[in-house]
C-alpha cells in the first residue's frame, strides 16, 4: 500500500519541519517527505490542501476500562475514539480490574489491542501488587510483556520505605516511574481544590500542598536513587515551581498536565457540575496560568487527555459521590491547539506536546515523521470549528466538562501503520 499525502502543511516538531510538503508512505513506513522516492506510484492519494499533516498523537494517559469495566467502555470503543482524535499511540494506567500487575494480563491487553488494529496501546504496569503500595511487582517480567513504565495510577503510596525501594528497583533496570503526586492524608475524601469555591460549596478540599509535598518527596527520592520519574497530571503552581527547580538541578524528571487543567479552574464546578469532578481537582486561576506557563517554558513536557470514561449513572449523583474523570481522547487536539492560542505559543509547540515529547517520555518509537518511522499520521483542519456533543463522541464515556463548547481543530484523516484507519465523513 502506497499513499501520497499532497499539498498539506507538514508539522513535525522532532525534525523541525513546519512547511508545505508532500508525504509519501510505503509499506507502513514514511518513505519520504518532500519529493517522491524513485518509482513511487501511489495506490491512494490524499489531498491535504489547507490541512496540517503531523505525526499521530501520543497520549500519556487513557483509561480503556478493559479488563473489568466493559460496562463503562471497551477497548474497541475507546480505541475508535482515540483514532478519531488523531491519537495513534497511548499509554494506559494499570488501574483496571484486575490490576495490571501480572505479565499475562499485559500480554492479553496488548494482544487484544493489536487485533483491533486501531491504535498502539502501551500499558503502564503496576508499581506495587494490586496497587496496594506494599509489595513490588515483577517489573522485569512486566517490562518483557510490554509495559513501558510503572505506575500507581490514582492509588496512594503512603509507605516511604516502599516508595524508596520501588525507585531503587526500577532504577536498577532503567525503568521510568509514573506517579501522580498526592499526599494521601491531605487528600483523603477531598473532591475539590481547597480554596474559596470549595469553602462556598461546602465541598471537602484538597490543598495544593497535598500535591507539592508529595512532589517534593518524590523528587528528593528520585534524586537520591537516580531514578527516572514522570510526574502525571500536575495541577498546582507550587508543583510547577518545584519541577522547574528540580530540572535545573539535573533531576531526571518529566511532567504532564491534562487538557482539563490547561483550560478549567475550580470556578467551572459552577453549581456542582459533576463533570468537573476530576482527579486531581481543578484548582485556581493562578494555578491554571502557572500550568500553561510551565508548558510554554518546558517545565511541563506534555499535554495528555487523561481520558477517563465514566458511565452516566456514575455521574448522576451529588458532586462528591460522582465518579471522578473526564472523557478526553477526542478533545486532545483542539484543546492543545487552544492552549497554544491562549498562551501565544505556536501550533508546532502544541503538536510537540502531544507527539515527540510524550513519545520521548514513554521511550517509544512514535511521535515523529522521520523517514522509515512507522507511518502513524494525523491530518487535521486547524480552522474547522465543531461543537462537543455527547451523541457525536465515539467514546462510550460522554462525560466531559466541555460538553456544548465549541472546539477549533478537527481530525480529517488518521493513518496507522501506513493504512487509513479513520476518515471524517
Amino acid at each position, binding site marked *: 500500500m502506497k499513499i501520497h499525502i499532497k499539498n498539506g502543511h507538514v508539522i513535525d516538531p522532532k525534525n523541525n519541519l513546519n512547511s508545505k510538503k508532500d508525504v509519501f508512505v510505503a509499506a507502513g513506513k514514511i518513505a519520504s517527505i518532500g519529493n517522491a522516492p524513485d518509482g513511487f506510484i501511489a495506490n491512494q492519494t490524499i489531498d491535504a490542501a489547507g490541512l496540517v499533516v503531523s505525526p499521530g498523537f501520543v497520549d500519556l494517559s487513557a483509561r480503556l476500562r478493559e479488563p473489568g469495566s466493559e460496562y463503562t467502555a471497551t477497548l474497541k470503543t475507546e480505541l475508535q475514539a482515540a483514532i478519531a482524535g488523531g491519537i495513534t499511540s497511548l499509554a494506559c494506567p494499570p488501574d483496571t480490574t484486575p490490576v495490571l500487575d501480572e505479565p499475562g494480563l499485559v500480554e492479553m491487553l496488548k494482544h487484544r489491542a493489536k487485533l483491533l488494529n486501531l491504535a498502539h496501546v502501551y500499558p503502564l504496569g503496576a508499581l506495587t501488587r494490586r496497587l496496594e503500595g506494599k509489595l513490588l511487582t515483577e517489573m522485569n517480567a512486566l517490562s518483557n510483556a510490554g509495559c513501558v513504565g510503572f505506575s500507581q495510577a490514582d492509588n496512594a503510596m503512603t509507605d516511604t520505605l516502599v516508595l524508596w525501594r520501588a525507585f531503587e528497583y526500577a532504577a536498577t533496570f532503567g525503568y521510568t516511574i509514573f506517579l501522580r503526586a498526592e499526599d494521601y492524608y491531605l487528600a483523603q475524601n477531598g473532591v475539590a481544590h481547597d*480554596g*474559596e469555591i*470549595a*469553602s*462556598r*460549596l*461546602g*465541598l471537602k478540599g484538597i490543598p495544593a500542598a497535598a500535591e507539592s509535598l508529595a512532589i517534593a518527596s518524590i523528587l528528593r527520592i528520585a534524586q537520591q536513587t537516580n531514578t527516572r520519574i514522570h510526574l502525571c497530571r500536575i495541577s498546582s503552581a507550587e508543583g510547577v515551581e518545584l519541577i522547574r527547580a528540580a530540572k535545573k538541578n539535573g533531576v531526571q524528571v518529566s511532567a504532564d498536565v491534562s487538557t482539563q487543567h490547561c483550560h478549567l479552574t475550580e470556578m467551572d464546578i459552577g*453549581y456542582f457540575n459533576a463533570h468537573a469532578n476530576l482527579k486531581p481537582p481543578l484548582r485556581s486561576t493562578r494555578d491554571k496560568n502557572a500550568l500553561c506557563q510551565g508548558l510554554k517554558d518546558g517545565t511541563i513536557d506534555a499535554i495528555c487527555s487523561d481520558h477517563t470514561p465514566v458511565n452516566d449513572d456514575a455521574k448522576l449523583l*451529588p458532586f462528591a459521590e460522582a465518579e471522578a474523570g473526564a472523557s478526553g481522547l477526542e478533545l486532545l487536539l483542539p484543546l492543545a491547539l487552544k492552549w497554544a492560542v491562549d498562551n501565544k505559543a505556536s501550533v508546532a509547540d502544541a503538536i510537540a506536546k502531544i507527539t515527540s515529547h510524550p513519545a520521548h517520555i514513554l521511550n517509544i518509537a512514535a511521535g515523529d515523521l522521520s523517514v522509515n518511522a512507522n507511518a502513524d499520521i494525523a491530518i487535521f483542519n486547524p480552522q474547522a470549528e465543531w461543537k462537543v456533543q455527547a451523541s457525536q463522541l465515539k467514546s462510550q464515556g460522554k462525560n466531559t466538562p466541555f460538553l456544548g463548547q465549541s472546539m477549533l481543530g478537527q481530525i480529517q484523516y488518521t493513518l496507522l501503520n501506513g493504512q487509513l484507519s479513520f476518515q471524517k465523513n
Partner: protein
Amino acid sequence: MHNPQLDIDGKLKHLLTIEGLPKRILNQILDTAETFVGVAERDIKKVPLLRGKTVCNIFFENSTRTRTTFEIAAKRLSADVINLNVGTSSQSKGETILDTVDNLIAMHADMFVVRHAQSGAAHFIAQHVPDNISVINAGDGRHAHPTQGLLDVFTVRRYKPDMHNLRVALVGDVLHSRVARSEIHALTTLGVPEVRVIAPKTLLPADVEKLGVQVFHDMKNGLKDVDVVMMLRLQNERMTGALLPSAQEYFRTFGLTQEMLNHAKNDAIVMHPGPMNRGVEIDSSVADGSQSVILPQVTYGIAVRMAVMAILGGRQSAGERNTALQAASSMAPGGIS
C-alpha cells in the same frame, strides 16, 4: 450561568442556598414570615394557602427537629405531608437518589423538602425535577441550610431591626457547618456591615475571609462590642479527627460563658441553631439566660418555613392559572371559527 433558584421572571423557584439570592427575595420571605407569626397564636392554626398540595419531606440524613418544623409549617398551610426517611429505606437497598425522586414525582408531589449528607444534593435534585415541582433544601452536607439562615436573620431582625448597624459574631465549627454558610450569606446580603467568625484554625474553611467575614481566633477580641452572638454546634466526632484535643479544652477556649459574653454589648442576643451541647460550646447559664433567644428561633422557624412554602406554592398556583388561561385562550379561536 443561570441561577437555578430563580425562574425566568426572577421569582423564587427553588430554595437551595442563600448565596446568590437577591435582597428583595430575602426580604419578601422575611416579610411574609411576619404575617405568619400570628397564625400560630390563633386557636385555629391553619391557613388554606397550600390546600390540595402535597409536600414531601425526603430525608436522606436523619433529622427530627428540622423535619418536624417543616411538617408543622406545611400542615399549617393545609398541605398534605408525606415523610420519607430514605436513610432507612430505599437507599440501603441500593436505589439511587434519582430513582427515589422519580418515584415521588410519579406520585404527583408538588414540593420536595430535601436533606442529604452530600453538599450539592439539593441542587442535583432540583436539576432533575419537572418545572412544576419546587425543591427546598433542608440541609446538604456542609453547603447550605437556607431556611435556618433565614430564620436566624428573621430572629435578628425582630430583636435588632437596624440591620445596617450591627456587629454579628459566629462562634465555632464553621468548617463543617452549613448553618454558618447560610447565616453568613443571609447577613451580608441584608447589609449587616460586620460579620465575624471566631474559631480555631482547624475549624475554619480555606479562604473563609472571601465570604465577607472578619476572622478571630480568640473569644475576647472576637466578641468585643458585638450585638449578636451566633453559636454553632460542635459535633463530638471532631475530637477524633485531630481537629481538637478535647471538649474541655474547646469549652475553655471557645465556649460561651457569661464571662465571655460580657465582652459583647450589654444588650447582645445569643442564638444557637440547636441541638445544643451544653458545656461544650455553650454554658447552660447562657443558653437559658436572659440574653438567649434560642427558643424564639424555633418558633420563628415555623413562620419562616411557612413563608418559603407559601411563596413557592404561590408561584406554582400562578403558573397553573397561567397555563389554564393559555389553554383557554388557545382553544378559543378554534371554538369560534
